[in-house]
């Protein structure tokens, strides 16, 4: 038995996506840049896929650029806005303390090149406040980049409002929507989004493919030089099969968002309710403004990696913001940013559901997580100190 509850890491590809890819491997395998009919058939398919993605996001096909995934899209969006800003002597960028490393590390690079970075506070509920964005905007602000939904704690940001503020101040607004696309209905025009990153493998598509939406009028800088693919902004022969798989998966996930949410949200809420019955546990991220499948909890007195290993032995695939799972010594920057102390952040568990999970699986997870937490606590000197009153509980 395997219960897969790590859909924020990656998703199972859908049959629709796989079937959409296959003909582009051995039938329509031409290079879209080739003049001959084999190539042109691939070019037509590529144009259709671009139109599909554009229709779903509410933009024009020429505003969609295919990339290798979310990280590349984030890098290119931020570096492009920075370069455009620098030309006008604007070297200030606003982001948040809970962004993905694809954003944070790109910002670190720019900081070394003389940019000034302001990170908005995500507060205890993991959500930034629009009035704090408004206060942070300066005449030299070149870009605001705020993720749509957080990959760890699942919190959904007030993107429409943030976008409106950016537009009023004439600042480019980028959103890393890798965790949101395919799970939340997004319309870039209605939500005042200038640039948006997405990744196919988060919604049932293949790995290694993504897209960047760039509103017409914003100059994109290419970070991979070579041929003239993607209107000269992203060199390299297009991964046609993957692009076809991504477009098919996106369409499928959009068509069933309402159905998926009506199944996911009650399962998520039951899981949260069941897990929070464990003493001294706390939900990370806002209780309501979160992705339909995201549960993230900290347990006092235990460490996340050992929790994951035991859960894996019981057939449960989950994730943790513990330092030990990342290979670094620091626990998740997101959990620290929302105010969890180091020792509590080490004991985190993320479960990210898909509509394929079942109510039985939810009950099995609740029961086995409770058992495992209690077992690990029974051998934890930290827990003993807390229970015997030598240390004070941080989580009540």
């Amino acid at each position, binding site marked *: 038995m395997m219960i897969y509850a790590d859909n924020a890491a990656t998703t199972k590809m859908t049959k629709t996506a796989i079937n959409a890819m296959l003909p582009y491997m051995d039938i329509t395998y031409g290079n879209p840049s080739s003049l001959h009919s084999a190539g042109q058939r691939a070019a037509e398919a590529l144009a259709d896929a671009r139109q599909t993605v554009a229709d779903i996001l509410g933009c024009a096909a020429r505003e969609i650029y295919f990339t290798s995934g979310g990280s590349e899209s984030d890098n290119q969006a931020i570096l492009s806005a920075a370069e455009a800003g620098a030309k006008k002597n604007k070297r200030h960028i606003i982001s948040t303390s809970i962004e993905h490393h694809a954003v944070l590390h790109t910002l670190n690079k720019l900081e070394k090149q003389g940019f000034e970075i302001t990170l908005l506070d995500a507060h205890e509920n993991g959500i930034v406040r629009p009035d704090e964005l408004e206060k942070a905007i300066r005449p030299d602000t070149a870009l605001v980049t705020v993720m749509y939904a957080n990959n760890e704690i699942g919190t959904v940001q007030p993107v429409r409002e943030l976008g409106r503020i950016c537009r009023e101040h004439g600042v480019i607004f980028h959103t890393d929507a890798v965790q949101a696309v395919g799970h939340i209905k997004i319309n870039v025009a209605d939500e005042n989004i200038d640039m948006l990153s997405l990744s196919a493998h988060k919604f049932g598509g293949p790995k290694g493919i993504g897209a960047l939406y760039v509103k017409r009028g914003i100059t994109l800088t290419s970070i991979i030089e070579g041929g003239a693919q993607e209107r000269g902004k992203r060199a390299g022969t297009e991964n046609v099969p993957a692009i076809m798989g991504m477009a098919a998966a996106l369409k499928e996930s959009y068509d069933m968002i309402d159905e998926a949410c009506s199944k996911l949200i009650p399962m998520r809420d039951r899981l949260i309710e069941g897990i929070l019955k464990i003493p001294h546990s706390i939900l990370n991220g806002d209780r309501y403004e979160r992705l339909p499948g995201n549960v993230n909890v900290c347990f006092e*007195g*235990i*460490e996340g*990696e*050992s929790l994951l*290993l*035991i859960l894996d*032995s019981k057939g449960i695939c989950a994730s943790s913001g*513990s*330092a*030990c799972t990342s*290979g670094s*010594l*620091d*626990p998740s920057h997101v959990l620290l940013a929302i105010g969890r*102390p*180091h*020792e509590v952040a*080490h004991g985190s568990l993320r479960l990210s559901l898909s509509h394929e999970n079942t109510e039985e699986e939810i009950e099995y997870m609740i029961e086995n997580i409770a058992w495992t937490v209690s077992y690990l606590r*029974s*051998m*934890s*000197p*930290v*827990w*003993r100190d807390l229970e015997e009153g030598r240390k004070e509980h941080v989580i009540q």
Partner: protein
Amino acid sequence: MLYSEKVMDHFMHPRNVGVIDDADGVGEVGNAKCGDIMKIYLKIDNDIITDVKFNTFGCGSAIASSSMATEMIKGKPLSEALKLTNKAVAEALEGLPAHKLHCSVLAEEAVKAAVKDYYDKNGIEYDRSEFPDCATCAHCEGGSC
């Protein structure tokens, strides 16, 4: 697989888990901020470790290292327990991933800290240079945790 079969065996079925209420020596090393704490309890009779128990907060390799270290010193004279090295613990576990080697270091230090506690409590003379001081260990220094 991240860990060897031996590590997984000692993690899933740890030996000597528990507390000794009337322990003759207790050693605690590590730091909750860094994500691992090991506490080792010793029962000592005539310089022989007659019983040993541990409690560990930490990752799979920290729990496995504690389990293995307690097995390696149980029934042994103190002089032998003091010779236990982190390398020997890691080897007995059929290796640890590079970024987990500090777990075996913690195990060695926890054993030494427990023996030192026994010496201190009983006024037994010992060579201080043989005992690492957790406060000066580089692992948790410099805000790297």
